């Protein structure tokens, strides 16, 4: 079962098709989705959406839907992510258009990182980011992640950024 956790301004919860798919489809219709395998027509966007939930069933963990506490609106996703072929388990994030510029990605990724360390027992974690994805690179930087190596995924080159480990993260939070 997919748990529900939260951060200061966000609820991290299981995906619901009725409320979450339309914003995800809108995201995958936008140019910004190029860093996430988009743009994609609606049926393909649904398949990407279904993988978020299916990931939990196949791996036992996966990304959470992000809900803004103040409005109840779905604003994106963040969480553990390890599709077949990735070099190691990672923390991913993605925000819908209206949710940018509020620090939500950093807040959600930090909470997801803690979930990885505290609930999944991870001892390390990375995030893979395309070099042209400036906003995500800045999130990784804010989280204290450091670029470590690159890997080729199909036709995209992903930079792998290593997050602070469990002890260092706890010290920062304290």
């Amino acid at each position, binding site marked *: 079962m997919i748990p529900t956790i939260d951060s200061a301004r966000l609820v991290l919860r299981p995906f619901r098709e009725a409320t979450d798919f339309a914003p995800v489809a809108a995201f995958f219709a936008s140019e910004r989705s190029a860093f996430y395998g988009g743009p994609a027509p609606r049926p393909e966007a649904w398949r990407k959406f*279904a*993988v978020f939930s299916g*990931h939990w069933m*196949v791996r036992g963990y996966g990304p959470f839907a992000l809900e803004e506490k103040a409005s109840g609106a779905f604003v994106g996703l963040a969480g553990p992510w390890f599709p077949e072929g990735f070099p190691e388990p990672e923390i991913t994030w993605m925000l819908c258009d209206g949710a940018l510029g509020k620090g939500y990605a950093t807040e959600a990724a930090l909470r997801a990182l803690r979930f990885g360390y505290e609930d999944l027992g991870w001892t390390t974690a990375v995030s893979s980011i395309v070099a042209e994805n400036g906003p995500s690179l800045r999130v990784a930087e804010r989280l204290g992640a450091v670029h470590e190596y690159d890997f080729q995924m*199909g036709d995209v080159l992903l930079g792998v950024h290593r997050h602070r480990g469990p002890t260092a993260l706890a010290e920062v939070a304290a």
Partner: protein
Amino acid sequence: MSGPVLETERLVLRPPKPQDFESYLGFITSDRAQYVGRVQTRLAAWKAFAVEAGHWSLHGYGPWVVTLKSTDRSLGQVGVWHPEGFPERELGWLIWAEAEGKGLAYEAAMAARDHDYRVYGTKTLVSYIEPDNARSIRLAERMGAVLDPAAEKADEIDFVYRHPGPEGAR
């Protein structure tokens, strides 16, 4: 994964598990999958597998994994699903090469169709089949499904076979 489990004379139909992936990979990257979404890479196969698992998670139903009663090993996937872009609920079937020719797909698909009519109260189902997929067409016809030229197509698949409703299927 939690979800309903069906039993037939020879088979168990259960929700997918992580360990079913390797046999799915073998099938979906093979020539046998040429009419049903064959992919080239492990990653694409994993994502297709996760899409089906995601359908289970989001909707509480989806394609079952088919096993013999004596073993938990996957021999294929049979069941009803309704992904975005499909105009109607579809009854689909995939059977690995090792399990072919024993009527297992028929046995599983009949049980899946009956379950859908009983549990969800659906009045009809379709199967989207490529015109060159002769084995699947034979199975659809054996189940009493007929080509429905008026039905809306899915994913540019040219044939829509319409199954008899709950009364006609008995």
